[in-house]
């Protein structure tokens, strides 16, 4: 092998190894940090993973929001009009969180089957319905009038 070829080969090997390493890193990160979306009836049917983060979306049930006295812990029910899951959250709820609104939460199920949310997302638009929630409501035939999405 000529020196020039050897140099080029070294370079190519280095680059391939580096990119391969990056790809492995990416694959691993993908596996660990992907959050699937579930609907309440899938959770009650036991399809959702226990002790792994996922996203749960639905409508906040009217009159279900309960705040613990003197703390920031809130409990509310999320429904897809088929089943209902109780969500626990400690912290500040977004501006647009309210009863009857479609929202998405991210968190995990605990052993007793209630959902501990790390994050509650309500989008920045009064008419906005998260697309995932809109779809599950459509399936249940409960999409409110005038919701284009």
């Amino acid at each position, binding site marked *: 092998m000529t020196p020039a070829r050897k140099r080029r080969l070294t370079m190519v090997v280095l680059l391939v190894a580096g990119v391969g390493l990056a790809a492995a890193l990416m694959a691993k*990160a993908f596996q660990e940090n992907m959050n699937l979306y579930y609907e309440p009836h899938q959770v009650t049917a036991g399809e959702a993973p226990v002790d792994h983060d996922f996203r749960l979306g639905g409508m906040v049930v009217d009159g279900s929001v309960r705040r613990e006295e003197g703390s920031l812990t809130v409990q509310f029910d999320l429904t897809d009009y088929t089943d209902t899951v109780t969500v626990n959250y400690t912290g500040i709820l977004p501006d647009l969180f309210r009863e009857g609104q479609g929202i998405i939460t991210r968190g995990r199920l605990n052993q007793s089957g209630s959902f501990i949310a790390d994050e509650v997302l309500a989008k*920045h638009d009064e008419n906005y319905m998260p697309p995932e929630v809109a779809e599950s409501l459509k399936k249940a035939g409960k999409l409110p009038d005038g919701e284009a999405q």
Partner: protein
Amino acid sequence: MIPEIGHYALILAFVLSVIQGVVPLLGNATGADRVMAVARSAIRAQWLMMAVAFGVLTYAFIANDFSVRYVAANSNTALPLIYRISAVWGAHEGSLLLWAFILTSWALAVSHFSRRIPDRVVARVLSIMGLVGAGFMSFMLFTSNPFARQFPVPAEGRSLNPLLQDPGLAIHPPMLYMGYVGFSVAFAFAIAAMAGGKLDAAWARWARPWTNIAWVFLTFGIALGSWWAYYELGWGGWWFWDPVENASLMPWLVGTALIHSLAVTEKRGAFKAWTLLLAVFAFSLSLLGTFLVRSGVLTSVHAFASDPGRGMFILFFLIAVVGSSLTLFAWRAPKLRSTGRFELTSRETGLLINNVILVVMCVTVLLGTLFPLITEALAMGKYSVGPPFFNAVMVPLSVPLFIVMGFGLLLRWKRDTAQRLMKQSALVLIASLLIAVILPLVWAPSFEPLMALGLLMASWVALTALMWVLRQGKSPFKQPLANWGAMIAHVGMAMTITGITLVSVFNSEKDIRLEPGQSYELAGYEFRFDGVDTVQGPNYVAQRGSIFALLDGREVAEMHPEKRNYGPGQMPMTEAGIDAGLFRDLFVALGEDLGDGAWSLRVYHKPFLRWIWLGAILMGVGGLMAALDKRYRKLAARDALQLNAQVQQA
């Protein structure tokens, strides 16, 4: 009547852009100089028409002309004048108009500042920009006309999304678009080079300043967006890996690779094909960014528009641009042989490694952003990819990037030895290690390995840049502006690394419940809550909290976070109370009224946060200095003389 003038001007601009796109190419094919000269006149006329169209739309907003549907949908009489003007680009149609106007402005600038570049090249460059413009203008005319009228005329318009009523956001989109569209110049130069089959040092010298300036705008645009998200969205973070942020980061990463690869192409005649590919992809990713943000395919706060027809148009446009450029590349790239040979230990290798890392980073962001869309489209489940994914990949990738960033500067072009490199860098390496170990021990409450690593990278990047300027063998003040630019940009990167590291490691935040008079201690500061009042704003009613921060019993800051209500049909807005400082930010946001005067509050202490944006400003300043180096003008004059001599000999 006036809106019709705007509409008519837009149609004329479209026709002119088609002429600008097609006629010079015909001239090019036949070698007719006068036909090619059409490009310069066409772009002037086209710019004038776009200025008229843009001016008319702005006037419609200022005059509250609600017969124009776009105005009625995005403005009302209660809106302050400055936000009526920024509302012009607050939504889909107007931002496209801004995009196209900026494109014609860039093309006008190219035709004006490139008198020394041969007419053949300028004609090709302008015609490619004309074709891109024709695509965007037809998009506007056929799917999203900003001048469309509506009858009956509503008495009052809908309000602009309150999130957008903010000075930071008024200038964020124009900055970002200047960057996005600026890459169209590099793209046009790349296509012109492939079409002409010639790519030499002179070509790289023409393309470099334009690419640098586009990159500068993009840098400022991204920094502004990050700053805006920090103080306006009330979440207190500075980067969320939101798809829209990713959309602007991708062209930035590839653009950063491009400006460095162009340097190699100019100085060493190497990386030619790679530079062309990067130019094509920097612009394609800018188009993808526009597509992602404006088509509504993303579940994101930014996707204000949602109309599948428009999304399809941009998608097909994108495929056409990428497809035709890559076809041209596959056909012509083998002809463009790189002439510069280099050894394994050389600056070229360093730049190559960093180019590859930047591209891998860009691919990571691209995958993470598009993966949820792809799985959903293929009905494989609804995934979301959050910040942990991006952090898990980007942080490890950035370590080798920064290491090579330092070595690259100290290495010599073409051939160097490991021995010399070690001798050059030993001092810097020792100094960086000392900084990385001693600073955390002295100042930090606890020794954090991540902090040491971040400081090591930051001081390494900054010190190698300083060392490089000092070792040029000339007094720093006699060195060209480009050297200063590179040094300042690298130091800026070091500042950003420092900011990111310290704010990530030592950020403290807490959601708390406070009654008036109560206080809470966070990171040594005592936050005292003095209750909430109601205040009246120009077009909103706000609940305004008063929080005082005390350090050792002494009052150091007063913050007034607000919760604004913009009236019926509008969402409430959280306006954070921020006390900014060079070494720390205090940040308070109002949560909810919990009854009895008690409120939930979110308080943050963010050390060194400002360094992230100060670093970005330095990077931009450095890029600007590099672009303004007089070498480009001097050498351009020489290149022009040589070319003319060649033409005369032939």
